[in-house]
């Protein structure tokens, strides 16, 4: 907004001098923005419009028919009002997804902030920073299938962790909740997505003027006071961007929740996948629209906390 306003202001005197040049400038700006708009329209707006349209269509087991009905949405909320206080499937699924969102957000934030802090303030040379960054990306080196298989020997009933705990005499019987449980889902999601917190927070931290920290120390601030009064407020944009990444990814995740939850834990993504597999595209589209609204609400709540344009 601000950018457009200033360029507009700059353009006004120019127009006074030469109308032709300003026309050229506008056209140039338009042309420069065009590729982005084309990509945005073709790969985001258009599919989104199709999804919204289809969510009002009718379907059978093998066909979908253009229509304008609300049945897909009413099906989605079937029993959500009349059965209260018992939660309907949709509410239950969203609550479960939100629960994972909150837990994973907290875990990745604490971990990501700590790692970013270490990388930004304690690691002095660039090569070492790069090396540590690469180490952070290790979870992405393997495919989801490999990771899925790899967790079983570690967390399973006869896995390494249980063997170690029993060997050390800490537990008598294997801990069942290590795998195929809420814990396993949160662990796996944290393992995967901490990097999305580390990168933006690290980026924000690198832009903090080191003189500020010296000044805080000179003014007699303790390490903790410097952290809470100087570093955290200045790293806020990074924290926010990281949070948006993590929240949106976890909201839509169904592979990790499915695999680590032993497919016993519902997620919005899995529901959509099942519906697509059974060719219930309109129902899946309605679900996707609902998910989109939920994610947008979450992001707008986050954005209210920080004015991201100003901070960047």
């Amino acid at each position, binding site marked *: 907004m601000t950018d457009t306003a200033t360029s507009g202001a700059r353009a006004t005197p120019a127009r006074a001098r030469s109308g032709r040049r300003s026309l050229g400038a506008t056209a140039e700006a338009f042309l420069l923005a065009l590729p982005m708009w084309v990509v945005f329209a073709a790969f985001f707006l258009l599919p989104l419009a199709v999804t919204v349209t289809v969510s009002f269509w009718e379907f059978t087991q093998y*066909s979908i028919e253009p229509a304008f009905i609300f049945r897909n949405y009413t099906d989605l909320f079937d029993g959500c009002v009349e059965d209260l206080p018992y939660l309907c499937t949709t509410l239950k699924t969203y609550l479960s997804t939100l629960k994972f969102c909150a837990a994973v957000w907290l875990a990745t934030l604490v971990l990501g902030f700590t790692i970013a802090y270490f990388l930004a303030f304690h690691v002095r040379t660039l090569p070492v920073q790069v090396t540590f960054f690469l180490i952070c990306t290790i979870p992405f080196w393997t495919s989801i299938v490999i990771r899925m298989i790899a967790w079983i020997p570690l967390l399973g009933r006869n896995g390494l962790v249980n063997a170690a705990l029993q060997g050390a005499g800490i537990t008598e019987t294997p801990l069942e909740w290590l795998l195929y449980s809420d814990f396993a889902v949160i662990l796996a999601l944290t393992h995967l997505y901490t990097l999305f917190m580390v990168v933006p927070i690290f980026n924000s931290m690198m832009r903090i003027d080191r003189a500020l920290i010296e000044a805080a120390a000179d003014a007699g601030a303790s390490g903790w006071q410097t952290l809470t009064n100087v570093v955290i407020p200045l790293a806020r944009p990074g924290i926010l961007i990281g949070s948006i990444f993590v929240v949106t990814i976890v909201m839509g995740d169904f592979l990790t929740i499915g695999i680590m939850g032993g497919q016993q834990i519902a997620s919005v993504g899995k529901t959509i996948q099942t519906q697509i597999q059974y060719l219930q595209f309109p129902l899946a589209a309605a679900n996707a629209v609902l998910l989109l609204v939920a994610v947008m609400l979450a992001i707008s709540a986050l954005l209210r906390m920080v004015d991201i344009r100003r901070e960047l």
Partner: protein
Amino acid sequence: MTTRRTFLKGATALGATSLAAPYVHAQEPVTLRYLSTAVNQSPGIAQRAGEELGINIEYIAVTTDDVARRVITQPNSFDLVDTEYFALPNLIPSGNLKGMDASRIDRADQIASVIREGTVDGQQVGTDGTAPFEVLYLDSADGQSFAPEPTDFITLIPTTYNADTLGIRPDLIDGEVSSWSALLDPKFAGKAAILNIPSIGIMDAAMAIEASGGITYGDKGNMTRDEIDFTIDRLIEAKRAGQFRAFWSNFNESVNLMASGEVVIQSMWSPAVTAVRTQGIACKYQPLQEGYRAWASGFGLPRTIDGRKEDAAYEFINWFLSGWAGAHLSRQGYYPAVLETTKEVLEPYEWAYWYEGQPAEQDIMSPSGELLETAGTVRDGGSYADRMGAVACWNAVMDENQYMVRKWNEFIAA
């Protein structure tokens, strides 16, 4: 209707092909894009077909549900599909599959009777669900409804079929398992698993629930809403009581769960049991008193196939029924469409082990040469007649499928 424009387009295409590529086309081997689940795609078969027929088989591997989805939404993305009979009530009305010309299938009348008529040795088997013989014929080549009597238009030519039952880890289970009700037996709390493919999972659940009493289904493969409600309620109860360790949705997951000992009892596919056993882990494909849940898969052709590709597809299917492929699949534990030609290719001791329920005279090897069973072992479930003859129901898509999927999602979320 041919407009000037489509005519021009056609003419250009025709011109381009006839001008640019006559020589190349004459020599280039035909490539058939073969759509199916990964378990049906044996590299050995593709290789052999290439050698004997000069046809390239290009496998496209997707999940069970995705095969049906691809047929309905992207019928031009394959030349040959290997899909389950139970998907047909959804696939045929879409008009994307063509009725196959029975006169071009050399052994159409030799296809196993369990597929053609639902009988084994003249005895009727269970017909709950979508039994293949109910959906085997179309009323015309481009028909969109099934013919009750045999016609010349076949929907699918069988590739493999089998009877599924519970797989168990005998080394981790005390006592005998003899009924489907064991799946919901609190004795196995936290150590049982079921499929998260709703249409199949609910039938396994129905077998278990009926066996433990309380309900007799009219047709387990085509439940009423009340029956679906009852089944899902019982499943939710079991889930809340911690009966299930995990659900699985593909072959490898089921093998991993069983091999790692996370699960000791679950509904299993025969080759999955074999896969666990080749790792040196005890795993038994346990015959049960209520019978088996059977499935059958077969070749279908997309409506759009024609010319050389269509000829090649028929040639490949005829080759598939001629023995070598049948023997190859038998050694993995599947049953093939034509038993006679399979018997000719298998060694007599192999036939005796796989089909007649006799103790193996020699060590039984897999197609890749790994040891499957040592001499003296008898196949789990016994002979072909014992296994296929004891089929209780077939994989199915219900009339109330939409409602069932919704209730299944409720179960997963519970």
